[in-house]
């Protein structure tokens, strides 16, 4: 298995393949700023929750690295995970009925973590397989296992994401594109574990 490309979005900045692309340390609204810098026209972006916004930015940057020879419409699998599910929006939705006495449908539709992958599929017209896992922490071994299971059944490319938006303010989105190859699963695991540590400055 091979890591074709990776991106990382957090409040401090947006990175592509390890390089800082947009520095947002001084920005009041880092995601809006980054979206504007991308120069992409997709007004739906403004309606999205934090998770979807981060995934949108991270994916836009990875697009040039998708192999053109593959049928991404059907054979691209999306494997996403996080620890806090849709917690950030969940708590906003609770406030909408407990504090404002008006349950908000536009918040409610984002109270599922897999809306993120849905938004990506809508944006890029991807009809492939999706799965969203809730995990205690980023676990490279699990992603590699899930991706391999997907390749075993005929998917040819896998977009993986660790995407977190906690009510405490912690936000990050680490995306990576996996393709089958001769590299061992263990070396891919080590690479992914190292990458996320570097991005997190650990």
């Amino acid at each position, binding site marked *: 298995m091979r890591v074709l490309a990776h991106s990382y979005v957090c409040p401090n900045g947006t990175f592509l393949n390890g390089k800082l692309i947009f520095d947002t340390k001084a920005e009041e609204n880092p995601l809006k700023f980054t979206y504007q810098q991308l120069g992409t026209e997709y007004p739906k972006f403004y309606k999205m929750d934090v998770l979807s916004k981060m995934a949108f930015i991270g994916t836009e940057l990875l697009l040039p690295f998708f192999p053109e020879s593959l049928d991404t419409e059907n054979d691209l699998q*999306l494997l996403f995970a996080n620890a806090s*599910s849709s917690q950030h929006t969940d708590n906003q939705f609770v406030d909408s009925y407990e504090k404002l006495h008006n349950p908000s449908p536009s918040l*409610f*539709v984002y109270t*599922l973590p*897999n809306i993120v992958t849905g938004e990506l599929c*809508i944006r890029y017209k991807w009809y492939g397989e999706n799965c*969203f896992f*809730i995990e205690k922490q980023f676990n490279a071994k699990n992603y590699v296992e899930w991706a391999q299971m997907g390749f075993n059944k*005929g998917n040819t490319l896998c977009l993986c994401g660790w995407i977190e938006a906690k009510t405490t303010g912690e936000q990050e989105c680490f995306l990576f594109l996996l393709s089958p190859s001769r590299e061992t699963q263990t070396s891919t695991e080590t690479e992914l574990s190292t990458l996320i540590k570097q991005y997190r400055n650990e």
Partner: protein
Amino acid sequence: MNKSVYIQYLSLVTPLGTTVEQHLEAFRNGSSGIRIAEKSGFQDSSLPLAKRTEITSNRYDSLLREGLENIQMTLPGNTAGKIAVIVSSTKGNLDLLPEDAFSSTRTIIRQFFPEAPVFIISNACISGVIAINTAADYLLADTYDQVLVTGIDAISEFVSYGFQSLFALSSEACKPFDKSRNGTTLGEGCGIVLVSKEKMLNHAVLYKGGSSSNDANHISGPSRTGEGLVRSIERTFKRSGLSASDIDFISAHGTATVFNDEMESIAFGRTQLDRAPLNSMKGYFGHTLGAAGILETIMSIVSMEQNLLFPNLGFSETGISVPLNIIQHLESREVKTVLKTASGFGGGNASLILQKEG
């Protein structure tokens, strides 16, 4: 698929009871778990709900414990260490908000299966079907010998108010595929199946293959063409080496919202499945979200064992643009091969095929 994968039911806890016999009886008699629940909706409105009234507090944790305690079988793999647990749930325990809603899930599973790795899948209403598909993938990759798949969601203010805000709830017990349907009815339950390499009990059937597909259309509305469901069904046919003519029964999703059921009818028409006997079980269980795929798979296995087709409770007059073969009366008939489908928010669609051995 070169290797055999088996699936069998271990436990189900719903408003209809805690044993397969109780559920068989309810399905034979057309008894629904749905009742009007006073003051259960927003601003004390009344809602029809399929609620397990025996539970009075901590609904999610109680339901999960009840489901696990209800397992009637000793699992050999539990000691051998080659067993994993996958939990399918859309929301976990919402009482835990603003903190982690899934923390109690892991703690409770660990009390019953201390050695087993626990994976949680939260992918809206298709979670149950993709959890079974993932379990089979793990067996085929030789990572585990057995995977216990638990589907669970509990009734909550959060989800009720949310569906109310979308005007997606029916004013009476939901009527899947019926002309007068006007929304779904929420339910709760816990269902557990065992997916294994070896046949472990007499009621195990073969899992022949499965897949998912996204509609790429809208985050909270189904595709008008059924594109995602069509692609998932076609992919599942390809993976299982089976086709529409092999299907004896379809356990459809059938939420009873106007748009969902219409979408499914178009998708079944496009895949030449419109003549296959079909039901939605939402009229019995309500929509149990993360548990739906598991509970409906369990009752599909019961259909296969009993060679019985259960009626689509709540249906009387066709109200979809592609007429389907909706089961209206209890019918004895050989049920060898079953297609289970699910569709949900986020554009997800999933399917799997079960078949009797031999």
